[in-house]
């Protein structure tokens, strides 16, 4: 009860992760614009997005541990932590030269599919229950559909379309997370069971 009183609201945590994912998206878009050769000219730049991805995975663990409003939330947050760290770690291994196969990009497919499924499974309400419910459904399906981009990259690593799609996915996810409110209407719909609506 004491912890619940002093911990930030769930919507704030969503906005903080949205900021991290926005940075991730901008880095990936910039890499697509300049091309992998120019991007890789400075070694530290190659570590940026995999490192940030790994860090976001690490930061997801306190979210799992502290936001224990339901078992299924804990499982969802824990699974995001694991797949973010898996993807970040695999990509760090690739840029460091420890891992060589282009198929390590498939870890991003796993990450997007697991994340999308976790969003859909842990949202118990329908699309128009409230804005948070709508965004969970939208995020879940966005992630699942977007898994096609890293899948294409695993087999065609130099595909600009696949790289662009992968990068844009993060920008879309950031926007959706920024839109989140704990209780707010969505397109004029708001369930009477969803609490007091905010703007």
């Amino acid at each position, binding site marked *: 009860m004491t912890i619940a009183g002093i911990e*930030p*609201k769930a*919507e*704030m945590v969503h*906005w*903080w992760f*949205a*900021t991290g994912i*926005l*940075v991730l998206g*901008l*880095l990936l*878009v*910039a890499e697509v*614009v*300049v091309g992998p*050769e*120019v*991007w890789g*000219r*400075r070694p530290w*730049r190659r570590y940026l997005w995999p490192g940030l991805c790994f860090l976001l995975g690490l930061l997801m663990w306190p979210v799992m541990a502290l936001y224990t409003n339901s078992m299924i939330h804990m499982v969802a947050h824990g699974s995001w932590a694991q797949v973010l760290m898996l993807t970040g770690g695999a990509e760090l291994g690739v840029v460091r030269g420890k891992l060589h196969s282009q198929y390590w990009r498939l870890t991003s497919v796993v990450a997007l599919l697991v994340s999308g499924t976790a969003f859909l499974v842990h949202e118990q309400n329908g699309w128009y229950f409230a804005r948070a419910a709508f965004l969970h459904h939208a995020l879940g399906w966005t992630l699942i559909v977007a898994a096609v981009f890293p899948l294409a990259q695993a087999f065609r690593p130099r595909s600009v379309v696949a790289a662009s799609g992968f990068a844009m996915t993060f920008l879309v996810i950031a926007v959706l997370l*920024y839109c989140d409110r704990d209780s707010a209407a969505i397109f004029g719909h708001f369930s009477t069971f969803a609490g007091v609506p905010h*703007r």
Partner: protein
Amino acid sequence: MSADYAHERLGKTERERTATAAWSIRVRVVLAMGPATAIAGIAWALVQPWRLTLLHPHGQGLWWLLAEPPLYVVLVGVLFRMLIAPGLIRDIEDAA
């Protein structure tokens, strides 16, 4: 100057011009990404000023005063422009 050499030279110049234009577009896009992000954050703050608790701070708790999503977006844009874009521009020009 023989016609063959002139034709070859002309073709090369065309290719160089196209390559330069492509680099120029890339430079402009990289330069625009940070400011575009920051402008998006400012536009969001103007459209939904209630998302900035700093504009009405009385009675707000610590977390609400720290949670300023439009400012986060502006900050990301500014940091990208200051920290990432300059090095990228130099490397694009070096590669060209």
